[in-house]
C-alpha cells in the first residue's frame, strides 16, 4: 500500500520555481530517501505534503487521502522534524512537549520521558536557552512523541554530534521496524546510504531518478581508472562512457553497459594499471548534479 502518492506536483512561488512535475510514491514501511542540493525543492515538497503551502498543479495523497482536503485528519498520524526547529519562547521543554502532545489522542507521558532520556534531553530547561543541537533533540522528541505512522525528516542530523546522530539513526530504524514509514530528506549521501531503501533524486525542482539504493549503486555504473601513458582519453569516448577525463596521466570515467565492451577496449592498449570499482553514491550523485 502506498502511504504517499504524488502526481505531477508543481509549485511556483509567483514566478520563482519551487518544484515541477514531481511524481513519486512511498510504500508503507519503507525508508524513502529524498536527496538533492540546497534549493532543489526538497523542503517545498515536504511543506506541500504537510499542507503548509498549496500547489500550483498536480495532486498528492497521504494514507490515500487528498493532502489539502484532509490535512487536519492526516496530520494526526504524521510526525515532522523540520531542518531548523523554532518553538515558542518562554516555555520549558516539558511544557512544549505536553502542549504538543495535548493535540493528539492518548497519553504520551511515559513515551516522552523514554525518548528524552534516550536522546539525553533535559526536560526542565527553557527552550530559548538551548543550543542548536539540543533544540533539534526537542524537535526529534516532539516529532516522534505521538507515535506517528509517517515521519518527515528534513535534514535531520544537522546540529547533532556524531554520537547523537548514531543514536538518532538507531531510533529511526527502531521506529521503522515497528512499521513507521519514513520520508528522509537530506543532501548528505552517507546518511541516506546508511538508512534508506529507496531514493529519489531531485535537482532544480525536478525528479531526475528514483531507484532502489542498491540498484543505483551496483548495477548501473562502474568507476574505471586506467593508467596508460601512450593513450589519449578520446580512445574511450564510447556511447556508454560518461564523465571522461584525464588526471596526471590517468584516464577516469564512468561506464554503464555491458562490461565486456570496455574490457575488450582496454585489452587493445598497453596499460600500466587498471581499476574497476563501484562508484560511491557520492560520485553517482555528483554525476546527476552536473548533468
Amino acid at each position: 500500500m502506498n502511504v504517499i502518492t504524488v502526481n505531477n506536483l508543481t509549485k511556483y512561488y509567483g514566478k520563482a520555481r519551487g518544484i515541477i512535475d514531481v511524481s513519486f510514491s512511498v510504500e508503507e514501511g519503507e525508508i524513502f530517501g529524498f536527496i538533492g542540493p540546497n534549493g532543489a525543492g526538497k523542503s517545498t515538497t515536504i511543506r506541500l505534503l504537510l499542507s503548509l503551502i498549496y500547489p500550483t498543479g498536480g495532486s498528492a495523497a497521504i494514507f490515500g487521502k487528498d493532502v489539502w482536503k484532509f490535512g487536519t485528519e492526516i496530520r494526526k498520524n504524521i510526525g515532522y522534524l523540520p531542518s531548523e526547529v523554532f518553538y515558542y519562547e518562554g516555555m520549558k521543554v516539558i511544557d512544549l512537549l505536553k502542549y504538543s502532545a495535548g493535540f493528539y489522542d492518548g497519553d504520551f507521558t511515559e513515551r516522552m520521558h523514554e525518548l528524552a532520556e534516550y536522546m539525553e534531553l533535559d526536560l526542565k530547561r527553557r527552550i530559548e536557552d538551548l543550543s542548536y543541537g539540543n533544540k533539534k533533540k526537542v524537535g526529534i522528541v516532539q516529532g516522534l512523541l505521538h507515535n506517528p505512522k509517517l515521519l518527515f525528516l528534513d535534514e535531520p542530523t544537522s546540529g547533532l554530534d556524531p554520537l547523537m546522530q548514531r543514536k538518532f539513526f538507531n531510533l529511526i530504524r527502531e521506529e521503522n521496524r515497528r512499521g513507521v514509514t519514513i520520508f528522509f530528506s537530506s543532501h548528505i549521501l552517507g546518511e541516506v546510504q546508511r538508512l534508506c531503501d529507496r531514493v529519489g533524486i531531485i535537482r532544480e525542482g525536478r525528479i531526475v531518478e528514483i531507484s532502489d539504493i542498491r540498484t543505483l549503486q551496483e548495477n548501473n555504473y562502474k568507476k574505471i581508472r586506467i593508467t596508460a601513458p601512450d593513450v589519449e582519453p578520446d580512445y574511450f569516448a564510447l556511447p556508454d562512457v560518461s564523465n571522461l577525463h584525464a588526471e596526471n596521466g590517468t584516464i577516469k570515467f564512468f561506464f554503464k553497459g555491458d562490461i565486456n565492451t570496455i574490457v575488450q577496449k582496454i585489452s587493445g592498449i598497453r596499460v600500466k594499471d587498471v581499476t574497476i570499482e563501484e562508484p560511491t553514491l557520492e560520485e553517482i550523485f555528483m554525476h546527476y548534479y552536473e548533468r
Partner: protein
Amino acid sequence: MNIYFRELRANLKSLLIWSGIVILLIVIGTAKFSAFTDNPEMLKILDAYPPALLKAMSLKTFNLTTITGFFGVMFLYFGLMSAIAAAMWGSDIISKEERNKTVEFSLVLPVSRSRIVTAKALAALTNLAAFVLITWVASVVAAQNYNPDAGFYDFLALEMQAMFMIGLIFLALGLLLGCAMKQYKRAGSTAVGIILGTYFISVVSGMQKSPDFLKYLTPFKYFDAGELYRAGSLNSVYLLLSAVIIVICIAAAYWTYNRRDLYI
C-alpha cells in the same frame, strides 16, 4: 482550548503594558483636571480658542470644568488606544507565528487553520475586554475625588461600550491583515496606518464644509463622545455598520488564511 490559553499567557505582558499606559493616562489626566474643576476662568480661556480646534478636540460639547465633561474629552484617547491596541493584538496574534518561524510547528499539529484563527481571535478578544474593563475601573477610581454623580457613571458606561466597539472593529481588521498578508512585517504597520488614516478622516469630517459621507468612513465617528453625550445611547445605524464591518473582516480573515501559503 490549548491554543487559547497559551495565547492568553503569551499576550499577558502586552495587556499589562497597555493597561499601565491607560492607567497612567487617567492618573495624569485627572491630575490636570484638578486645575479645571469648578474654574470659570478656564472656560473663558477655552472660548478664546478657534472653534475648529475646539471641535476637533471635542471640547465644544463638553464643559471641561465637570468630571463628566472631562471624561468626554478623555474618550478621544481611550478610543485611539483601544483601536491601536486591538489592531496590534489582532494582526500580531496571527502573523507572529510566521515572524518567529513557529508555523512549521504549530500548523503541523492536527488542527485546522480555522480552529487556530478562532482560538487566537478569542484570546485577542479576551485581551480587549480586559483592557476596556481595566480602563473602566481605573476611570471610576480616579473620578472618586471629584464627587461624580449618577450621570457620570451612565456616561462612562456608554463610553466604555463605545471603546469596546472601536476596539472590536480594529481587532477584526487587524485579524484580517494578519491572516491575509503574507508579508507579516507589514501587517502591523498597515494596521497602524489605517488607524491614523481613519482618525484623520474623523478630524476632517468634524470640520465645517466637509462632505457628509466622510463620517461613514471612520469608526471614530461612529462613536463620537459628543454624540454619545447628547443621545445618551449608541447610534443603532452606526452599530449595525460596525457589525457589518466586523463580520466581513472576520469572514475574509478565515477565508484567506485557509487558502494562502504560509510564509516559512
